[in-house]
């Protein structure tokens, strides 16, 4: 149970659980979409196990099923077949509304286009997941938001609206938001796809640092030279796991 009391006691590195215990387990997962031109299977019999504290890059060409895999893992999409277990929860067994709350506690999501709410300040954007999940007392939420923004290097931007920030700063804010409830797993879909080279490097370094702090990180990316940051690289081709390289 991820309570605030336990959160306070834990150091960030204590998230790291002993390797060998599976935090994500996909068993014969299939995802088929109904399209105007007929059914399209994006994931075909995927079997994948991820250990706590791993930094996994999911790579592949466009249409290979990377984003679909991430969506299925985050409970954004429902698998057509197969069993998905994330942090001890079997996703096909919980409702859409329960999924939302589960996601808030368990997964920190980072999107390519940052997806910050435009009418809330950066600090408020970071505080919002805490409001939804309510494991952090209301009186401590702003302090925690400022700490997280400090951690990603944009504490001085806390009271600005997202439109006032650069792309890299917005992505850092989105990462801080993903960390709001201190979830064990971070998932990011092309987090560097919209950033320049320098910003891209700093964001990847940030993810590596978070992984070093104990978070399990799953990164969907087109980046070719990402292996220096990650423990493991899963390559998808036409919905199959074509390669699974451990570093």
């Amino acid at each position: 149970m991820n309570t605030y009391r336990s959160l306070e006691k834990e150091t960030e590195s204590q998230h790291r659980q002993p390797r060998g215990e599976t935090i994500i387990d996909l068993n014969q997962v299939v995802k088929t979409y109904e399209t105007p031109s007929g059914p399209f299977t994006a994931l075909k019999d995927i079997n994948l196990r991820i250990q706590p504290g791993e930094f996994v890059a999911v790579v592949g060409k466009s249409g290979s099923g990377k984003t679909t895999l991430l969506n299925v893992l985050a409970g954004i999409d429902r698998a057509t077949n197969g069993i998905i277990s994330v942090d001890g929860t079997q996703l096909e067994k919980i409702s859409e509304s329960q999924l939302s709350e589960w996601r808030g506690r368990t997964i920190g999501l980072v999107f390519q286009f940052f997806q910050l709410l435009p009418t809330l300040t950066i600090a408020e954007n970071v505080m919002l997941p805490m409001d939804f999940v309510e494991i952090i007392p209301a009186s401590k939420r702003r302090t925690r938001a400022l700490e997280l923004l400090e951690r990603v290097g944009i504490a001085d931007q806390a009271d600005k609206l997202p439109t006032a920030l650069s792309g890299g700063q917005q992505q850092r804010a989105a990462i801080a938001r993903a960390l709001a409830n201190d979830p064990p797993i971070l998932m990011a879909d092309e987090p560097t796809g919209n950033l320049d080279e320098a910003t891209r490097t700093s964001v990847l370094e940030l993810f590596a640092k978070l992984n070093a702090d104990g978070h399990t990180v799953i990164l969907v990316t087109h980046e070719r030279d990402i292996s220096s940051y990650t423990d493991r690289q899963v390559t998808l081709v036409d919905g199959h796991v074509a390669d699974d390289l451990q570093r």
Partner: protein
Amino acid sequence: MTRLLFIKLLRDLRTLWDRIVLMILALSITLIMFSAVLYTWGITGRELSGAYLSTSPASATIWIKPGLDADEMAAIAAEAHKQPGIINVTPRTQLILQVQQEDGGWGPNPLQIFVAEPDDPMQMETFTVEQGNWPPAAGEILIDRSSFELLELEVGEVVVVQAPNGTPTSLRISGVVYDPALAPSFQEQKAHGFISAASLPILGEPIALDALKIQVADQSGLTKPSRNRNLIVATARDMANWMQQNYAVTIREIQVPTPYAHPHQAQADSLLLGLLVFGVAGLLLSAILIATMLNGLFTQQIPQIGIMKAIGARSSRMLQLYLLMTLIIAAASTALAFVPGIFISRAFAPVILTLLGADAENLTAPSWMYLVVIAAGLGVPLLFSLASLVKTSRTTVREALDYRGVDQYGNNATRFSAWLGRLWNLDRTMLMAFRNIFRRRARLLLSVGLLASAGAVFVGGMSTMAGFQASLDQDKELRRWDVDVRLADIDQASAVTLTGLVSEIPGVARVEEWSILPTSIVPPGQQIIVTRTYPDQGHGSISITVIPPDSTLITPPPLLEGRWLRPNETGAVVISQLGSTEDIPTIRNGDAIQLSIDGRITVGWSLASPSQWVDMAEASSPRKPALRQLPG
């Protein structure tokens, strides 16, 4: 609702202020219209009823013929008061006078005078004396305040009048009376006055009272007049039979108007109900408008909903957020409309009441109406937006992330889009415009529904106006004469002579002699006539119009059932739907009915048809030969 979501809500409202202001204005304008009419309805209904009941109207009037002197009637009244279920009894009479104009001729407008004994306790059919005193001295008259303008008279002036049996006589106007039980003189073109019985000899009339006014309770011992007309009719019949048996009087008619209802109550209700219908239609229209605009606003928020759900928000939180947004808009509109609605009703209600001849003592609407307006202002927009609210709040993260402003049509949309693309003369801009129209079906349906509803309300309003005008035009068409001269009393021979003389006047193309006689439908087995006539002898009454067989001035009115009268047909009658439905609701074409005509009960009338008629208060019309068949 979390604090941050509330902050987001307020900032979203600020960002969308122009659209929000438009929504609030649209809703508040229709709420003003709706509330003003509703409050006016409430105020008018209560004040009209209150004013009417303040006159302590009689439950029934028993007319005898001939009248008795004051002492005899007082003795009957004293005994009648002891009868079971009788609250009050008082003898009265009334006359119709002609009024002399300044040029010495007799004016076109009659003066109806109500007569009571000088010692009448005035506990029934009473009135407010605004100037002068009751009872006026012999030779003096109090005039209803709405009659002064009609008669062009003032207090203190002397008016020359002539009673049916008298000669021209002068009466001094000693004061002003407010009687809300009477229709205003400008509406009826009839003046009203009040004298004591002491003035009757001056007018050349005997001191004879021929009306016994009674108030009937539901049970003996109760002091509140009954609302049950059937009970009142039964009690009045018993009283009439008792009077016949014990005092050998002849009962001319019993008049039992609708209890607790002002003579113009139905008119006021119809007018305000009509306005209220359009007020409600306007409210519904603005609710659809708001639902359309909110749907657009919620649709814009779909990506944000997706993000919030991705970071832990449940659907219920999203529902709360957008429910509150809708409520804020509705509450702001309701607040904005609240005071203007009250002010307009306070200006409008007295106008309606003046038309009905009543004063308003209290211009505050009933408190439950304020609650209705608040409930309508908050509830109707919410109700109309609910489907959109629930749908939006249930948007999944996947749907939100995939949202591109296009509905999921599937193959049908593809086929439709493809079909649009195949239209040979459609350029790309037009094609894009057409596809954009059908891009989001919910928006399209709401927009089309809004325009259709607005069109329906507009066409409904215009149709009502056109229908009302058409009805007036039809009445004008049916009335194919220019001048209608009503004679107080004339025999058949004199009428024929007069008709001949008038026809010789240059410019007179056609003249006909008609008779209009007071009538009622008498249920089988009854010998006492019971009508719904009000004390002014006009409202609630029905009459029969007797027309020459060769009449060219009459145009048969539209028939709801049956047929029009045939030439030289006898024993048949056409009655108006009003006359048929009130007294004998089950009456059908071909049934035999019993009529009283001019105080005499006749038999053997077969019903040709119910019809619409020029004057809705009239039943019509056996042709003249039919009258010759009357017994007696």
